[in-house]
């Protein structure tokens, strides 16, 4: 009995490892099955899924609602673009993009958490920060705004951003298929690290803070430090997504900081399931495919193509009302329910994967 807790943690970690392994399988299967242009498309969705998981970690696991996750995405992207255009090794630029985004999140988090901002004000601050970045970047159209060799380009963005290259052959940009493996590999690795972290003692403490800050403090947890670390990790992961996207598109513009992207990230998490890490990944990719399909005008009512945003909005509303827990938790509960029905004699009612034991 006394080892139950440990076993829970162990089971959680095994589940994360298993999920990552399935991810590896899907990665190779998709590479073998999909057409070239589909691979290209999927790569972009996978990168957005990294943004989704960054918010899933901050908000779903850490309980910190961030309305401006795109701020870190944009920072990572711009940092990568500017460094790579200034002849930085692309791997180094990627690394620095992650570090800068994480560092900025730490700084912002320091002021928010140590300033004891209430949740509402935190929402306002994160929202404002991403808007400020967007405005700032938009106003750098003039030729005076350069960083080294690179022009910031204002709302026109920065073209010709160098593509990632292998450290072995810095002069050779990676091919699209290779970039696909980089993006998918990065997503799996991030999932694995964050997933294992949620089952570590730091991760449990972060869950405690999410559930009740007062109680966490009264049993000796440094709530502000824990929130700061969670926020910084999430910022760094969002920065990774931004940097990968700048490389993937060979382009970045101020929309990387956009409110639209921040809002999308929130939606992916809600649809996928707040509190899980896999859910938002699936939510992101599913919704991206859905809006792609809608934008092709395939979905018609009485011969007329419907407005994408309208359809998407209706689907989201339906999702939130009909599947309030989100995709992943609902599917999991469904599977557990079937499992129990299939084995009616199974022993005592173990709480269906208590909130503390999420994959």
């Amino acid at each position, binding site marked *: 009995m006394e080892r*139950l807790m440990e076993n829970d943690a162990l089971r959680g970690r095994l589940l994360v490892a298993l999920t990552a392994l399935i991810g590896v399988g899907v990665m190779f299967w998709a590479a073998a099955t999909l057409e070239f242009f589909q691979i290209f498309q999927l790569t972009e969705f996978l990168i957005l899924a990294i943004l989704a998981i960054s918010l899933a970690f901050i908000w779903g696991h850490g309980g910190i609602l961030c309305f401006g996750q795109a701020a870190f995405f944009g920072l990572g992207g711009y940092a990568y673009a500017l460094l790579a255009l200034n002849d930085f090794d692309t791997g180094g630029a990627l690394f620095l993009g992650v570090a800068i985004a994480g560092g900025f999140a730490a700084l912002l988090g320091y002021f928010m958490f140590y300033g004891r901002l209430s949740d509402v004000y935190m929402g306002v601050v994160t929202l404002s920060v991403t808007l400020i970045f967007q405005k700032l970047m938009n106003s750098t159209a003039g030729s005076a705004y350069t960083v080294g060799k690179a022009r910031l380009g204002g709302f026109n963005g920065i073209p010709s951003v160098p593509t990632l290259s292998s450290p072995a052959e810095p002069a050779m940009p990676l091919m699209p298929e290779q970039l696909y493996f980089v993006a998918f590999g990065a997503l799996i690795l991030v999932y694995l690290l964050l997933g294992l972290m949620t089952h570590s003692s730091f991760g449990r403490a972060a869950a405690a803070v999410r559930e009740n800050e*007062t*109680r966490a403090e009264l049993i000796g947890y440094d*709530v502000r430090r824990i929130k700061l670390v969670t926020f910084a990790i999430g910022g760094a992961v969002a920065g990774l997504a931004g940097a990968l996207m700048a490389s993937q598109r060979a382009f970045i513009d101020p929309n990387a900081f956009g409110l639209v992207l921040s809002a999308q990230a929130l939606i992916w998490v809600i649809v996928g399931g707040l509190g899980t890490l896999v859910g938002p990944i699936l939510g992101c990719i599913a919704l991206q495919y859905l809006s792609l399909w809608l934008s092709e005008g395939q979905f018609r009512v009485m011969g007329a193509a419907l407005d994408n945003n309208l359809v998407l909005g209706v689907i989201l509303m339906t999702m939130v009302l009909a599947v309030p827990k989100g995709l992943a938790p609902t599917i999991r509960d469904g599977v557990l329910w079937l499992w129990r029905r299939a084995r009616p004699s199974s022993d005592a009612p173990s709480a269906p994967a208590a909130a503390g034991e999420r994959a």
Partner: protein
Amino acid sequence: MTTTPIIEARNLVMRFGGVVAVNDVSLSVADGELRCLIGPNGAGKSTFFKCLTGQLTPTSGEVLFDGKPITGLKSHEIARLRVGIKTQVPNLFNGLTARENVWLAARRNHVDRAAGKLAEAVMERFGVAALAKRVVGELAHGQRQLVELACVLAGEPRLILLDEPAAGMTDEEVERITTVIREINRTTALVVVEHDMQFIRQIARTVTVFHQGAVLVEDHVDAVLSNPMVRDVYLGKKAA
């Protein structure tokens, strides 16, 4: 006799705008003591606890824990000195299981495995071992109180502050915590705030009476309960 008190407040004042919730309170509790704190609603008992645990920074005055000043320390720092508190409003990790609630407290001072052992033992003691896997948000009020007490105890505190631990509990549950409090008191100092006089009679020796933010009387339980002043401001109203 000059043994250091486990907790001591010196001229503690807590002001909220015009309201003086704690008004120049000096109070000291010896190590190993079981002190009861009573007084009418709004007397400042909970506010006093919040000042002791760093949830509020007192307007003036000093708090010493084991002889060392702790005024101005943050809540988690005071908790790490091994001060445990059950607040008046329930404070639990509602989305987590009972076991994890208790484990998180035990984990502060122990590695995973030892924390697991400790959590099991403490839950056994409070009779909530059977609830280990249940999500705390779904438990009945009394059960949640017991889990919160287990959580406090799992931090292995040297001083425990309990703000109305018996409120809203069944007779059976009250009996259990009466027993457990006596038992805990063999090794640990406690300060207990309660309105339930029957419960107070069961556990109390020295009782401090708060009234309008200040200490009205401090005496042996029998003397306090028959004190006309106390009857006037507090007990009389309860009887009426």
